[in-house]
């Protein structure tokens, strides 16, 4: 499994042209972001609509760190992820008391708040002071291992795999078992001695941490960031596409990233207006909500198991 993924990561980037390299880099970055959304949705049954804003937080901190210290990219990325994790946990605090629609609205307000802040101040680009805004932008250099687009695509893929493994590790150990009980019922979790508030906060922190990684990678790829990339509406779209792609399996999250970034580009490339993608997303969401709660990935995997069974039956 890991081997075939490694082979894909090695081969595919060398086959793509310049446009698609960039499209795939940002697809993978948003696959990473969706991985965080999926932790909350699939493991805890919580809806968070602030994930893209948290990507922005991670990007902001990464840029700010680099302009201030010039430390290696990976250090700045870690700082961005940690701060983003803390912010994610703060946005999630209301979740200790609310769920469903009210929680979704609170997180959306968090996302809108970030949008307003960052539209007013923009991202750091080498200036003085805390905000670090300069008239002419200084670009943050790519990470050493990702200087060409081809190398950068491999770099983000490797980080994506590490993020999947981080989530999987959590799922299989103590936090994962606690999340499972909380999802079953909070009363059951409390009766089992689970500190419900702590493990919910842990889920939000992990989702925010991963969003921060995605933000750092976005900043690392582009060198500068722009407030228009992080409106609250993008957070809603990313959540919706996570449901469409499938939050319960990594394949679904790969699909989410592709739908989010590659689908509009492909449509543009074949001469169709990229906004048509939204119509397709809408149809996909209806489909997911009505017939496929585990998303497209769930359907594909079910299909494969059916096929395997039929083969074995013969």
């Amino acid at each position, binding site marked *: 499994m890991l081997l075939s993924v490694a082979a894909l990561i090695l081969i595919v980037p060398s086959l793509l042209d310049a446009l698609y390299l960039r499209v795939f880099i940002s697809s993978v970055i948003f696959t990473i972001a969706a991985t965080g959304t999926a932790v909350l949705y699939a493991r805890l049954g919580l809806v968070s609509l602030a994930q893209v804003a948290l990507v922005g937080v991670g990007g902001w901190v990464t840029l700010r760190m680099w302009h201030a210290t010039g430390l290696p990219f990976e250090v700045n990325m870690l700082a961005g992820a940690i701060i983003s994790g803390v912010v994610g946990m703060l946005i999630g605090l209301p979740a200790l008391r609310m769920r469903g629609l009210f929680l979704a609205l609170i997180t959306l307000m968090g996302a809108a708040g970030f949008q307003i802040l960052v539209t007013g101040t923009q991202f750091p680009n080498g200036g003085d002071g805390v905000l670090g805004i300069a008239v002419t932008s200084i670009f943050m250099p790519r990470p050493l291992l990702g200087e060409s687009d081809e190398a950068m695509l491999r770099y983000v893929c490797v980080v994506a795999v590490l993020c999947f493994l981080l989530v999987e590790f959590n799922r299989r150990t*103590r936090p994962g*078992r606690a999340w499972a*009980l909380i999802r079953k019922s909070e*009363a059951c979790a*409390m*009766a089992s*001695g*689970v500190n419900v508030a702590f493990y919910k906060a842990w889920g939000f922190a992990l989702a925010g941490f991963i969003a921060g990684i995605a933000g750092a990678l976005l900043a690392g790829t582009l060198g500068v960031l722009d407030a228009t990339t992080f409106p609250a509406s993008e957070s809603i779209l990313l959540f919706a596409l996570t449901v469409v792609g499938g939050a319960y399996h990594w394949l679904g999250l790969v699909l989410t990233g592709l739908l989010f970034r590659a689908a509009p580009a492909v449509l543009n490339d074949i001469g169709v207006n990229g906004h048509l993608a939204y119509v397709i997303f809408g149809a996909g969401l209806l489909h997911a909500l009505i017939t496929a709660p585990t998303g497209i990935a769930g359907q594909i995997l079910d299909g494969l198991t059916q096929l395997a069974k039929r083969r074995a039956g013969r």
Partner: protein
Amino acid sequence: MIEIRDVSVSFGGVRALTNLTVNLADPVVGIIGPNGAGKTTLLNVFSGFVTPGWGSICAFDTDLLAMRPHQRARWGLRRSFQTEQVVDDLSVADNVRAMLDSLPVTSRSERERQIEKALTYVHLEGKADELGSALNTYERRMVELAKTLVGSPKIVLLDEPGAGLRDEEVDALRQTILGINEQFGAMTLLIDHDVEMIAATCISTVVLDFGELLAFGPTAEILKDDRVKAAYLGIEEAE
């Protein structure tokens, strides 16, 4: 020894428990009463899901109501629910392990030993690696029971563990409940509508009716009591 003093609970206008005062000391104590009598509410007061308007519960010299729900679990309070709560996408062993995660059991080998002991006790040792979703009703009830037995339980609260089970399964459940005190050292409070089950397992029994203590004493005597028959058994027969 559990001392329940003056416990009263009301939900809006409904009085679910009224000035309940009783001392429980036997290894297995039954709680019976007609539907809506307040049995589950009493367990919820133990667990901390319902805060009584009045009263106290002192268990083995500890003020139970002063602790938060998850702290009570760490202290040694265990419960199963009227609707079972086995998690479908965790293995049987992980369902039990989830319980131990939050308890002050130090070493890893001790945890594994306790999981194995509990699963063997409920005869699920062969199914440790199966997913919760693969279990039948009886096995699910048994997983719930196993969960209550790890981590040195002091009090085990069982809310109708026999609901929906077939006769031979109820027999097995009865044997399992009878051995808890000897094997795990815990005191058991058992809610059940099955009078035979109560008669066979509980040394003393609490009878609730409309939130009030109707009777308390040795099970055999209680079940012969005319008021109990009128309030509870009569209704059972009529059903």
